[in-house]
């Protein structure tokens, strides 16, 4: 959601003065797969509406993912309760669990591992309580497959299209990813993830507008805004979209939980930090064409650069 908090806490994604694709993962200091922010309530309502209006777009699963889905329920509840004990609680009596979400004033009772004790699949259930999109990658026969996922806020991709696909096939559209051997390297890294050592990385792109739900299926609704960007309105219209991505090994099914928390920041807000403004200007000016194209910036890159130059000039004349 559009960043409303303190800028000092914004997950600013850049280091150095150039950007290239890489596995910029680092071991997490706080090993939690979820984060509750000030826009929790608003985002949950929005997410639930998307899930009920467009289930095929926002939720997909293969039948053999159910055990893994329960693992996700277990880890997410554990992290919610440990990190936010004032907002979430769990009572466990053998396999009978009662989960309480105090922010939304909801109580849910179910039998852990018993599919029929919930009105929906376990992953669908728990995803209604967290701002993150949750993706389940099953490791089987020396490869990783997208076997289940809840995705409401994709950065221009389609869960319905990618369900059941292998890691490399999913990332095939990224230009240079295969040619540079990065797909194999990152697959290798992911298959060696270990329980107890979760990882985190930041991914970014630019977008015209401030929609969280930029799925491939609705491109016709949000893509056209790209043509409306000018150097005058770029500060307000264009947003940097940052995904905080977290990777956890799920030891019961030897699979991976990939959680994505999306944040949007208007360029005019980014520009209030002079170091960020300067660094982002350098990175965007230098960014290779194939990355500009893939991130969907080509149409309005010039307008954004012009806007950033103007801001930099103003800073210098002050």
């Amino acid at each position, binding site marked *: 959601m559009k960043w409303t908090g303190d800028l000092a806490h914004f997950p600013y994604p850049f280091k*150095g003065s150039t950007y*290239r694709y*890489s*596995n*910029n*993962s*680092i*071991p997490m200091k706080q090993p939690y797969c979820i984060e509750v922010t000030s826009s929790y309530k608003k985002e949950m309502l929005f997410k639930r509406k998307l899930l009920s209006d467009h289930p095929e777009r926002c939720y997909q699963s293969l039948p*053999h993912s159910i055990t893994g889905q329960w*693992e996700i329920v277990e880890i997410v509840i554990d992290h919610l309760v440990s990190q936010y004990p004032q907002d979430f609680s769990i009572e466990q009596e053998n396999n009978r669990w009662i989960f309480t979400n105090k922010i939304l004033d909801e109580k849910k009772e179910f039998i852990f591992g018993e599919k029929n004790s919930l009105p929906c699949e376990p992953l669908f259930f728990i995803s209604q309580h967290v701002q993150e999109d949750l993706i389940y990658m*099953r*490791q*089987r*026969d*020396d490869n990783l497959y997208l076997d289940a996922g809840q995705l409401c806020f994709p950065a221009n991709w389609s869960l319905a299209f990618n369900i059941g696909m292998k890691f490399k096939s999913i990332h095939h559209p990224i230009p240079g990813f295969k040619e540079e051997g990065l797909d194999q*390297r*990152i697959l*290798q*890294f992911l298959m*060696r993830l*270990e*329980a*107890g*050592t979760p*990882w985190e990385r930041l991914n970014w792109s630019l977008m015209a507008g401030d929609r969280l739900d930029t799925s491939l299926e609705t491109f016709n609704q949000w893509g056209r805004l790209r043509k409306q960007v000018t150097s005058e309105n770029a500060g307000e219209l264009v947003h940097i979209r940052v995904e905080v991505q977290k990777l956890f*090994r799920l*030891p*019961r*099914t*030897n699979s991976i939980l990939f959680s994505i928390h999306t944040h949007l920041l208007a360029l005019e807000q980014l520009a209030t930090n002079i170091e960020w403004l300067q660094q982002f200007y350098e990175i965007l000016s230098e960014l290779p064409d194939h990355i500009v194209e893939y991130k969907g910036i080509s149409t309005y890159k010039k307008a954004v650069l012009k806007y950033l130059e103007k801001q930099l000039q103003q800073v210098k004349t002050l």
Partner: protein
Amino acid sequence: MYIEPTLFVRVSSIEKITKQVKKFTLFPETGKELPRFSGGAHISTYLKIPSGLIVRQYSLVSHPDKRSNYEIAVRLSENSKGGSLHWHQGMKVGDRLQISYPKNHFSLSFKARHHVFYAAGIGITPFLSMMQDISTNRQTFELHYASKSEESCVFHSYIKKHYPNQSHFYFSDQHQRLQTTSLANHPIGTHVYFCGPEGFIEQFRTASIELGYPILSIHSERFSPPKPIVLKAFQVKIHNGITINVSKTETILEALHKHGIIAPYSCQIGRCGTCELPVLKGRVDHYDSFLSDEQKEANNCIIPCVSRAKSDKLVIEIK
């Protein structure tokens, strides 16, 4: 050096199950439950003994969904360098130790139509949790288990009771021999799994390959002790530029950065692969957990945040 995160446990019971094998039950010290695991998983155990730290891997033999405790079975090895000897003679109920989170390098194939396990002696251990997983998934399997005698056969009565139709025992004191010929009798789509002494695994692997089993349908597990790190100074030459010294106490990556050379990196513990660099000359001493064995043997790349040089000098390429 990077030390993996660990869990603190205490020994809650020790049971002698055969003449040479003891079963240890480990319960979490914090009261928080232990992680679940998947069939075929193991843990590393860290034992502090006067001469230093001993790290050993053992398969988990308890139920994968049991979170209140873990069980491992340890065989006293004739030429023990301290690991099993300490487990057998030094360990007492109540003793505290560190274990890793569960890992699995010997997992069940997902696409297999049928699973066949070949175990020799203490090599039975990873198959116990695998059989439990298969039974829940309603898949089919068979077990061929060789042991010196019925008395020394670990978990014999348990297996006989729970898997009477799937298990076959071969006791050498009764002149029964487990032979590779049975590999020829399994239906198409079978995956075979071997665990036991090195020679046993090698014999069955070779026979399977000769019979035409696809490589990906053959699974085996070997535990290898972690490699002790050799810290010596050496030189690194950038292919078109300067030569820099890497001291005993710094990494190649640190030395590069100290000289103002731009080299990308991320995790700094040899796992993410971001800092990988091509090697043009010199022999690499690999310490990372990122490159595969084949990539390491090729000796043409290095993970400079942890790996070092075996030779006095390495020539690397930085664009």
